[in-house]
C-alpha cells in the first residue's frame, strides 16, 4: 500500500512541475500527531540521482475538523513571500478518491522538529533556551506579531471573517451537534462567554492554533509555523489567550511547566508583543479569549469522541480525548471564578 501512496506523491509532484519525469519513491512513513490531518514523510529519488524529502498532509475520510485542505494550501502559498516562516507548498490533489483515502497536498521538508509540550526533555530544552539565548522565545513572539500585522486583505478571500460572537457560536454549534452527553460546565462556559465579551476588537489574521507544538525548531531557532487549518480573520487576542493557557504549557491534569507555552515568561512575552505590534496587552483582557480557546478545545475533543462512537474513525486517540476534558473543566472553573 505504501508503494501505491508513494507513486501518487511522485505523480502529483511531476504534474506540478516540482519533479522532472522519471522520479522514484523510496520510502513513506506516517508520523504521529495530526488529529484532523494525517502526515507522512516521503523520500524520493529524482531521475538525476538526487534525493529529496517531502511532507504529505492528508485530509482523511474521518477528519476531526471540517476544515478545507485547499484553503490551508492557499494560505501557505500566500504566506510564502512574507516574513512568517512556513514550508513551501509544492502540489495538491483535490480528488477525494486517492490511495491516502482523501485529498492531500505536498510541501517541502524543512529542518527542525516539533516540540512535545508534555515531554520533560522538551520542556527542559525550552527552559534552557529561555534562561540563555531566548532564540525560540524571541522567534515565537516576533512571528506571532508578524502574523497579526499581516495585511489580511492579501490573504485568500475564502478565509472566514469571524467576530468574537461568531467564534463563540461556531464552537457552541459543534458542541451541540457532537456531544454525547450534556456537560453543565461547558454549557455554563458558553453562557459566560456571551455575558463577558471583550470591550473592543483588534482585527487581524488569527492562526487559530498557535503553540510551540505547531512549530519546527532547529538549532534553537524557529524554522516553520505549521497547521494553519483553523486560520481566520478576527480578534488576534484569540492566539494570545490560547498561548497563555496552562494547557499550552503541557498541563494535562496539573500544571507542569512554569513558563508560558513552555518557552517564555508570560509578562515578558505580552510586553514584547505589545511593543512589536504597538498595541499593549493587559493580561486580564485575555480572559474571554482564554475561555474561548478552551471551548474550541472542548468542541474538538467532544467531536473526537463522537467520531469514534459513530464509526467515523478507528483512531483510538479519539477515544482517549475524553481524558482531556477533566483538566479543561478545571481551567474553566478557575477562569469563571466559581
Amino acid at each position, binding site marked *: 500500500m505504501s508503494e501505491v501512496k508513494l507513486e501518487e506523491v511522485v505523480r502529483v509532484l511531476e504534474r506540478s512541475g516540482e519533479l522532472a519525469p522519471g522520479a522514484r519513491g523510496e520510502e513513506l512513513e506516517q508520523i*504521529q500527531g495530526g488529529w484532523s490531518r494525517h502526515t507522512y514523510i516521503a523520500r524520493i529519488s529524482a531521475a538525476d540521482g538526487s534525493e529529496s524529502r517531502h511532507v504529505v498532509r492528508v485530509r482523511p475520510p474521518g477528519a476531526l475538523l471540517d476544515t478545507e485542505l485547499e484553503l490551508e494550501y492557499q494560505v501557505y502559498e500566500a504566506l510564502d513571500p512574507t516574513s512568517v516562516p512556513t514550508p513551501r507548498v509544492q502540489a495538491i490533489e483535490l480528488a477525494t478518491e486517492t490511495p491516502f483515502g482523501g485529498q492531500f497536498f505536498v510541501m517541502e521538508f524543512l529542518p527542525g522538529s516539533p516540540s512535545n509540550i508534555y515531554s520533560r526533555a522538551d520542556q527542559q530544552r525550552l527552559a534552557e533556551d529561555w534562561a540563555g539565548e531566548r532564540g525560540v522565545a524571541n522567534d515565537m513572539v516576533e512571528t506571532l506579531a508578524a502574523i497579526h500585522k499581516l495585511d489580511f486583505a492579501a490573504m485568500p478571500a475564502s478565509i472566514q471573517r469571524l467576530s468574537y460572537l461568531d467564534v463563540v457560536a461556531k464552537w457552541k454549534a459543534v458542541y451541540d451537534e457532537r456531544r454525547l452527553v450534556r456537560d453543565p460546565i461547558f454549557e455554563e462556559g458558553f453562557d459566560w462567554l456571551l455575558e463577558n465579551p471583550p470591550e473592543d476588537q483588534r482585527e487581524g489574521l488569527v492562526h487559530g492554533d498557535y503553540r510551540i507544538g505547531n512549530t519546527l525548531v532547529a538549532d534553537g531557532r524557529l524554522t516553520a509555523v505549521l497547521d494553519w487549518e483553523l486560520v481566520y480573520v478576527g480578534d488576534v487576542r484569540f492566539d494570545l489567550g490560547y498561548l497563555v493557557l496552562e494547557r499550552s504549557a503541557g498541563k494535562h491534569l496539573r500544571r507542569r511547566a512554569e513558563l508560558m507555552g513552555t518557552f517564555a515568561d508570560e509578562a515578558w512575552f505580552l510586553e514584547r508583543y505589545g511593543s512589536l505590534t504597538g498595541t499593549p496587552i493587559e493580561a486580564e483582557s485575555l480572559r474571554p479569549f482564554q475561555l474561548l480557546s478552551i471551548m474550541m478545545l472542548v468542541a474538538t475533543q467532544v467531536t473526537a469522541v463522537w467520531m469514534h462512537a459513530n464509526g467515523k474513525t478507528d483512531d483510538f486517540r479519539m477515544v482517549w480525548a475524553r481524558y482531556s476534558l477533566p483538566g479543561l*473543566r478545571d481551567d474553566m472553573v478557575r477562569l469563571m471564578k466559581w
Partner: protein
Amino acid sequence: MWNPLSPSEVIAAMGSPVRDAARGEEPLDDWQSGQLLSVYSATRHLAAEVGAVEPHLGELTGELAAALRSAAEPPELVASLSQLAEQLRDVGDSRQAAEIACQALDLVRADGSAAAEQVRAKIHVALAHAVELEVRLLADAIEGPVEP
C-alpha cells in the same frame, strides 16, 4: 466524572488497535506505536476513574441536591428544582447527574431572578467541587501525588 462514553465503551474500543498490533507482520511504525501508547494511557486513566473517582458519585449528587433545594423563590422554580433534586436520589451514573445539573441550570438561567442566581452560584460550587475532586484523584494516580 461525566465524560462521554462509559468505562465499558472505552474498554470495548481498546480491542481493535491491540488486535491490529498483534496480527501485524511488520514492525510497528510511529503511528501504530502511538495507538498502543494511547491504549496504555487510557488503561491508567480508566483504572483511576473506576477505582477512585466513581465512588464519589454520591457526594456529587448530595451536594447538587442540596443546592437545588436551597431555592427560596419563585414557587414554580422551587417546585421544579425540588423535583430534579428528587431525581438525583436514583442516579447511578455521573452522566445522568450532569444531565440533571444541566436541566437545573436551564431553569435558573431562564428565571433570571436574584433568587435563581443564588441557586446558580450554589450549583457552581457543587460542580466545582466535583471537578476539583476528579482532577486531583486522576492526577494523583497518573502524575503522582503533589509533594508537600
